[in-house]
């Protein structure tokens, strides 16, 4: 019998490896096994003392773990708890039945302890800020125009001159305010330059906007 058992081990060692790991996995859910697995496990347990020991430990765990929640009386623990909580009880005795205030205090204490509270507060704050930021909406250009301006701002520099002229002609004074510091020419002049075609004249450099002038020189290769 022992020789046969050793032979089995030797064969397993050069083929699948020891079967104990698989047996242990089945042992952990022994009460919910399909019939075939249960039969295979029982056959393994007949011959494997290590797994039999593990099976015995697993079988004893529920009772032993439950017993941990029913420990022998801890000397002084009840007295210590009562000492800590006595002031609360006396206060309750004086104030009588807990009212809405006590309920609200307990409710808030419990809410404040939630792990997601920080994220929730941040979300509410962000929503509030967004609402406050969008309330004076009349002062901002409508969303469609904002999108058009944004599309032009991120456009390639090579087309910037004509795009600015085009946008300025359409948006008029409003865009002039938005581009304050970039190009202070009157909208009419921009429109005129647009009509003159893509060749925005070198007079750009005379407006004091050297940055625009440089980019245009670069564009035209001058």
């Amino acid at each position, binding site marked *: 019998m022992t020789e046969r058992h050793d032979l089995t081990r030797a064969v397993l060692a050069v083929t699948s490896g020891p079967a104990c790991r698989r047996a242990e996995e089945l*042992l952990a859910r022994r009460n919910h096994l399909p019939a075939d697995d249960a039969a295979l496990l029982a056959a393994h347990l007949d011959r494997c003392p290590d797994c039999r020991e593990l099976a015995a*430990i697993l079988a004893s*765990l*529920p*009772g032993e773990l439950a017993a941990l929640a029913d420990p022998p009386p801890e000397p002084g623990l*009840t007295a210590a708890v009562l000492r800590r909580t006595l002031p609360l009880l006396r206060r309750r005795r004086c104030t009588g039945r*807990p009212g809405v205030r006590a309920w609200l205090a307990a409710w808030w204490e419990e809410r404040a*302890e939630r792990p997601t509270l920080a994220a929730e507060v941040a979300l509410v704050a962000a929503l509030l800020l967004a609402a406050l930021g969008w309330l004076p909406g009349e002062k901002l250009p409508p969303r469609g125009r904002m999108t058009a301006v944004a599309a032009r701002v991120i456009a390639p520099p090579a087309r910037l001159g004509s795009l600015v002229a085009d946008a300025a002609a359409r948006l008029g004074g409003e865009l002039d305010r938005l581009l304050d510091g970039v190009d202070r020419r009157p909208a009419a002049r921009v429109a005129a330059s647009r009509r003159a075609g893509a060749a925005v004249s070198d007079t750009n450099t005379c407006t004091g906007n050297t940055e625009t002038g440089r980019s245009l020189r670069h564009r035209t290769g001058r």
Partner: protein
Amino acid sequence: MNPRHDTLSGLPLPLDRLLAACRDGDELAWEALVRATQGRILALARSYVRDPDEARDLVQEIYVKLYRRLPLCRDADRFLPWLLKLARRHCLDHLRRRGARPPARDIPVEEAVGLADPGPDPGQAHADEERRRLLWRALAVVGEAEREVLVLQEMQGLSVARVGELLGIPAGTVKSRAHRGRLQLARALRRLLAGSAGRGRT
């Protein structure tokens, strides 16, 4: 103690009346409630902190918190899961404040075997007490997520659904964690037993 029950035993009054009396500030009712629940709360605290004194301190803080929040618990049927949830959250907050993790990940079984026993000579100690100590040490090396499920399901007797609700995970996850946890615990216990038997021989 019935290992599967998830209700409190040994109460002098039905739980709903006991809770109402506690809310009104009745010291006797509060004492009865503390006596009926402190074993469970101590066991839960010990599954998060290894030091028994630290666990005792945690238990006291949990009861202070429990008393303040009693007005929130109107449903006696849900009292025990609610109390365990409160206690668990307090233990996790304590660990976070302390800046430490439960020792499960820090102490491999091999080291745990070599730890000096804090109690009296094992040869003179009662067999149950020794077994209990070994079980705590084996629990300390089980993964944190699996240990929480084991503590709530096997130790506290909560149903799979209640454990899932308390931890915020699906029932299937509770079951798979319980399987893994049981296996980890049994392996750790087997190694601890082999280690203590080895020490006994030498």
